């Protein structure tokens, strides 16, 4: 197979990211992929572009492909299906399938009629070359919930910018921490009891920081009930972008069609950011600023934290590193929470780092604790309390960056917060450390259950090192959109999650 080149990939992006087809304006017939003219109405017919990306289809037929082309060898064997979206057939790979399903022979009667929807995934790559992403992949609704995209133009407009939507994506696969301990001959209790790590989320073999960012962004967009053109700036914080140079945000914009279309692209801006685990929390401030200043002309800004980070096999990080993403949209329409105060705190502290071209990060063991995490989280927390003039008891909830359960518990206790205040935002024990997404997933977990008027204390942390602190107040609008949320706990506690072994997890780390 010849090398897949940039021009080929670019041309396919439009059709395969958003499953773009066309519809005849005369007779209403739909086509996938898009056609220049209607096969029934003839060459004079007028065609309009349609997308199947937000729709639900059903499986018509398929096969379990065991002898796959080399480029699919990482994913092989897998199930490929042909689906029907209201009569329009679209091919795709069924993904997030229980590995036990491929241990037995494919039986079409188990699959036919199953309702599935498209997801953006990584399908193949050239070694050292372009990674091809596509939405010609489907998931059933056992674990993944499909929430209908229903933009509403009738949302209240606030004077001040706030959070208008959020979404969290946690992959379906999980690895028990005890399983890792067993692999390396360690006592599970060191990690389970000592660090409060029970299990962690594992990306499927077709997932990475890019695909998880897209999925979290999609969920945030659905929750915000904003039209896609209303998002005009996107920041993605990550320390595990599969590309050293090439942003994740452009994939998010293209896959979700964010912003106003212009020619072959979108009048939308943004950038990827990197600051270990605070690459995304750091971008709340710029997001608030640019959506507050009418001169900039940005209605809404999406901030995403997405990570599927690396850990050296057997290293302490190997027990904690998870996979997941969270996205928050800032703007003035349909505000669900406002940011009342922001503070930051930074020092040049090399507690955890990864040199260019190195596969695994390094960390300075106990140096990552007292002089790094605690110094910055507590320092920043104190500054936030000073700036707000409030006491810990004045807050309903507190959430911190969570590399494990013990660190945030201890920081909270030193600052004067109770276990009840931090519990709803503590998610790490069941999904692992999701780095740039960790603090945001905690915040989302609180927003999932918070009531209007609730006050939230949040402090993120990134090695290298710094913290951002935010005082967030929940607004009335939160109640209006709650049915559009896929709660964090529903993903953590789902009885449809799938446990994998250490080898699968290793493969998923690439």
């Amino acid at each position, binding site marked *: *197979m010849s090398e897949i080149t940039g021009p080929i990939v670019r041309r*396919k992006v439009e*059709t*395969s990211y958003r499953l773009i087809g066309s519809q005849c304006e005369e007779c209403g017939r739909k*086509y*996938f*992929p898009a056609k220049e003219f209607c096969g029934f109405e003839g060459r004079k017919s007028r065609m309009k572009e349609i997308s199947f990306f937000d729709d639900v289809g059903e499986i*018509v*037929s*398929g*096969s*379990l*492909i*065991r*002898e*796959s*082309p*080399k480029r*699919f060898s990482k*994913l092989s064997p*897998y199930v*490929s*299906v*042909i689906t029907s979206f209201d009569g329009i*057939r*679209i*091919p*795709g*790979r069924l993904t997030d399938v229980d590995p036990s399903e491929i241990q037995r*022979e*494919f039986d*079409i*009667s188990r699959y*036919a009629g199953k309702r599935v929807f498209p997801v953006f995934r990584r*399908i193949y790559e050239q070694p050292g070359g372009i990674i*091809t992403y*596509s939405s*010609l*992949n489907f998931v059933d609704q056992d674990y993944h919930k499909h929430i209908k995209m229903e933009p509403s133009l009738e949302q209240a407009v606030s004077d001040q910018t706030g959070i208008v939507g959020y979404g969290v994506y946690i992959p379906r696969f999980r690895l028990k921490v005890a399983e890792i301990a067993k692999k390396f001959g360690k006592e599970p209790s060191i990690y389970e009891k000592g660090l409060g790590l029970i299990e962690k989320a594992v990306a499927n073999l077709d997932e990475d920081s890019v695909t998880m960012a897209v999925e979290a962004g999609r969920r945030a967009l659905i929750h915000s009930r904003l039209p896609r053109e209303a998002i005009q700036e996107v920041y993605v914080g990550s320390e595990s972008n599969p590309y050293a140079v090439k942003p994740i945000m452009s994939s998010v914009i293209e896959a979700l069609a964010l912003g106003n279309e212009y020619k072959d692209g979108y009048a939308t801006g943004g950038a990827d950011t990197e600051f270990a685990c605070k690459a995304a929390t750091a971008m709340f401030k710029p997001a608030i600023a640019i959506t507050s200043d009418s001169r900039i002309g940005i209605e809404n800004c999406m901030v995403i934290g997405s990570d599927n980070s690396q850990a050296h096999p057997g290293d302490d990080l190997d027990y904690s590193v998870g996979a997941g993403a969270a996205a928050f949209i800032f703007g003035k329409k349909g505000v669900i929470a406002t940011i009342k105060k922001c503070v930051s705190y930074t020092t040049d502290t090399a507690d955890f780092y990864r040199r260019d071209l190195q596969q695994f990060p390094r960390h300075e063991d106990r140096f990552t604790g007292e002089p790094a995490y605690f110094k910055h989280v507590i320092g920043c927390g104190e500054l936030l309390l000073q700036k707000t003039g409030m006491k810990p008891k004045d807050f309903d909830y507190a959430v911190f960056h969570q590399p494990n359960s013990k660190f945030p518990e201890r920081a909270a206790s030193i600052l004067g917060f109770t276990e009840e205040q931090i519990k709803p935002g503590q998610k790490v024990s069941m999904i692992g450390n999701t780095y740039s997404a960790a603090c945001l997933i905690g915040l989302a977990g609180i927003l999932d259950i918070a009531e209007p008027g609730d006050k939230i204390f949040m402090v993120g942390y990134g090695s290298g090192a710094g913290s951002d602190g935010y005082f967030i107040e929940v607004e009335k609008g939160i109640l209006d959109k709650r049915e559009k949320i896929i709660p964090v706990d529903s993903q953590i506690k789902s009885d449809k999650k799938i446990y994998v072994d250490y080898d699968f997890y290793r493969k998923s780390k690439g």
Partner: protein
Amino acid sequence: MTKAQAAIVGAGRTRFGELWNQSAERLVVEAGLDAIKSVDKGIGRKDINAFYIGSLLLEKTTNISTLDAYLSRELSVHAPIAILKSGSSALYNGVNAIKSGLDVVCVGGIEKMTDAFVSIPEFLTSTIDQYEADAGFTYPGLFAAMTNKYMLDFNAKREAFAKVPCKNHYHGMNNEFAQFRNKMLPERVLSSPLVADPIRTFECAPISDGAAAVIITKPEIAKKFTDTPIYIVSSSQATDHISLYSRHSMTKFESTELAMERALKESSIGLDKIQIAEVHDSTPIEEVLFLEDAGFVKKGLGWKIVDESIKSFEGSKHIPYVLEDGRELVINCGGGLKADGHPIGATGVRQVYEAFKQLRNEAGKRQVSLDKQIESAVLHDTESSGAVSTIHILRRFE
């Protein structure tokens, strides 16, 4: 009135299989010379006005993208040489050339798949729709999806499909050119490794080297070359979408249906006159669907006819399909793609070779013996996972 469009006066072929020591150029020359030699009253290379050669993969497998120019040297000819993607397309174009006024045309096909420096399954993804390929489908994967849909819609028994390759292996046992001459039983097929569920390894046509060639002429001059020419009474081709998902049906090949319809109309021959068929059986579903798409059996009954007709692998040399009206139809007399071998570009021409020999009663040990003389044969070849179907009807009489 049946009217011949062209006449076949000679046919040649090589053995099919893993022919490690044979080069592509040599194979095609061997088949070509064999065809020339087979012309009863003789024909010269220089009498040939044009060459139409089927080859899909030579550029990928053997790094030859100029087969035409090689042939000019190897055969010492200067006539025009056109390369098509299949042997049947080569024949279709060759017949058109005869109809346009040429007297003598050589139609050939060649593939040298064991030369592949890219893996063949890898390359075959370029013959399917790019979105199906991105969905992970492979060439057998698409036929597997069709098989599954067919089994679902018509409540077909899985085991019926496994009988198809066994029947074709049985036919191939007497074929001295065939890649596989061993008996194959359904139990063995059903325990061979899965390729794309439910399709298993022993249900897929093999990777083969080989070449075949035939000489065709204007019908009016055919007797100059032989007393027993075989006439091509229809030559028809139809296309369908490359993508299975956008075709009207996932349980039939519309291209076959259309090409067959046209072919029957063109030749004014009824299906009842056809006694043998060479069919593209790269996977069993194609042979099952051929029975339905060509009109031999009703939609949804193909598997049943297969299941009920193929009962034992002992006794007579061939296992005919017994159609609803009791008539018999022998498919793939020399083993088809599965047993004879499937050098892709050569297959369509090998089908002509087989039917030519059968219709002339020259097939030796694998000669189909029916109550009466075989009069008509239908040839069915496809390209691009069924997107192109070519049908030729051959007759003993003009």
